[in-house]
């Protein structure tokens, strides 16, 4: 089944968003069996740079990123290693 999710790529990963995107968010269509790694690969984000991967704000461990994860309307947000304070 086809679903739609929002993909957010932040910090240096915003370079991997399509040129016509405003801000850091793009709506994408995918099959409900898709995995986070498939989305990451689709946008050519190097997997080692996808450090902080949040599905609806909840961290997805690297070992779980090959499992189907999405429901219609979800938000997947991804950052490279970042910190501040």
């Amino acid at each position, binding site marked *: 089944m086809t679903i739609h999710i929002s993909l957010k790529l932040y*910090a240096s990963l915003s370079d991997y968003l399509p040129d016509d995107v405003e801000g850091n968010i793009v709506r994408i269509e995918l099959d409900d069996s898709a995995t986070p790694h498939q989305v990451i690969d689709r946008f050519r984000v190097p997997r080692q740079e996808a*450090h902080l991967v949040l599905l609806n704000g909840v961290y997805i461990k690297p070992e779980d990123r090959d499992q189907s994860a999405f429901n219609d309307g979800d938000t997947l947000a991804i950052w490279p290693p*970042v910190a501040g304070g």
Partner: protein
Amino acid sequence: MAWTQKVLRINLTDGSIKQEPLNMEWARDYLGQRGLATKYLTEEIDPKCDPLGPDNKFIMTTGPLTGTMSSTGGRYSVVTKSPLTGCVACSNSGGFLGAEMKAAGWDMIIFEGKSPQPVYLYLENEKAELLPADEIMGTSVWAADEWIHKKHQDPLIRVATIGRAAEKGNLYAGVINDLHRAAGRSGVGTVMASKNLKAVAIRGTRGVGNIKDPARFMQAVSDGKKVLHDNAVTGQGLPKYGTQVLMNVINEVGAMPTRNMREVQFEGASNISGEAMHEPRESDGKPNLVTNAGCFGCTIACGRISTIDQGHFSVENKPEYWDASGGLEYEAAWALGSDTGIDDLDALTYVQFLCNEDGIDPITYGATLAAAMEMYEMGAIDKETTGGIELRFGNAEALCRVTELTCRGEGFGIDMGLGSRRLCEKYGHPELSMTVKGQEFPAYDPRGVQGMGLGYATSNRGACHLRGYTVASEIMGIPEKTDPLTTDGKPELVKAFQDMTAAVDSSGLCVFTTFAWTLEDIAPQIDAACEGDWSPDKLLEVGERIWNLERDFNIAAGMTAKDDTLPKRLLKDAAKTGPATGRVNDLDQMLPKYYEVRGWTADGVPTSETRKRFGLKALSA
């Protein structure tokens, strides 16, 4: 040995200035800066003293690596008793002043008493003079800095000074050095003002030598710099986006304190984020961010240098604010932005400039304004109180106007200078003050980051992220990822971060290095520079000793386990959105275990065995 082994002691009451040797026995136990100055403070003042009275002392202190070639080795701290919290205060700043103080030959400057007239200290290597400051009293930080440079005709002087807010008694005024670096929290600038000390101007030409093993030190420093360079956080993320890269992260995980912490996500977060600071403005095509900037010796350079859109209402016809200056860090952007419901990047930048110009802590200020906005919206204060200002959440014009008043200590700004605890008590709503021990929260809602709740509750200077930044682990996965919504293992995690940070804060280095460095990277640098055997384990021992000493100071000052708590809003009102929906902070599940792993009694007092282990003695009766 990296320490200069010299302390400058200045009695402001009688104007005497003396040099004395650094207590090296204490240096071996407390290293320097935060730890060593806290030891001096604890030995020299009554913890129950009036923080704004002559019996309190005001200590400016460096670490052994301050002024050396270690990356970020430019830090200095102000240690005193806080007028905001009544606890021990230690506020840490970068810039260039700390290194200049060290190059002038001093580990520490201890100010005691109170000057009968306004003065500033002029320090040029061994030459130290108290000079009249009448002409710069009542002026801003920026004006005082310019006046001192012109008077001494030396552009290389480094200046730390207070602004008008401190002089007017604002309880969270900081000490600003190099125009926009701040020993910002806990009202250390207010203490400086209480002593009639307007500024400290330093010129040091001696350099920092006396390194124990120069060749080994250079190798250890070189190794450390490579680690910082190769790390994605310290080598790429922080230089490009600064701490502001966190704005979208923390909002996404549902830990963004919003509208006086009523909510945990802010709909305008992306408009005031690190990414937004890179976006060209519609009006002039220029981004908010001009460049990044580094403090002395820093190879990270996370600082933000920004401009405000010249057409923005906040700076219209105010060309003095059109040039580039110190811009938004995440902590300021959160407090001034999401906590007040304002997503106007130019307005926030203008207010940040004002906070620097007159030396107030933007975290406490923003949180105090948020509490005032909530009281205004519920009718507890009105336009008569605010001087006609419509103090509603989201009102950027109100933010700018109230900040101007607060920085100058005028009108409603006098009330604002009380901080949120006293302000909310004054207007009958103490429950609306989002504080621990009287100090306002930083930028992580503890309902969404459980460990930070324990860190806030037990922080020795009131709510603070820089006493144990478990966000690194709970959100960012540094050094390893833990679940932000569980309490399991958090007492141990909080203790580990607190002890490690206390050691780093005592070294002269910036705590941001620890996003890449462990103590395994830091210890070799200290060990090569300093007399003694400085292993990672020794540093952790020093950090734990410092934590217990600070705790004992606070106990003697009157704090008890009842003060190790959070506002009811965070313990009773569940988060309504995001991953933490339905959660409060489960402090009661963590605090007893924390006391246990600390070696404290169930009442939060270090046991005699714990004190003995660190060579401490009870300070309280």
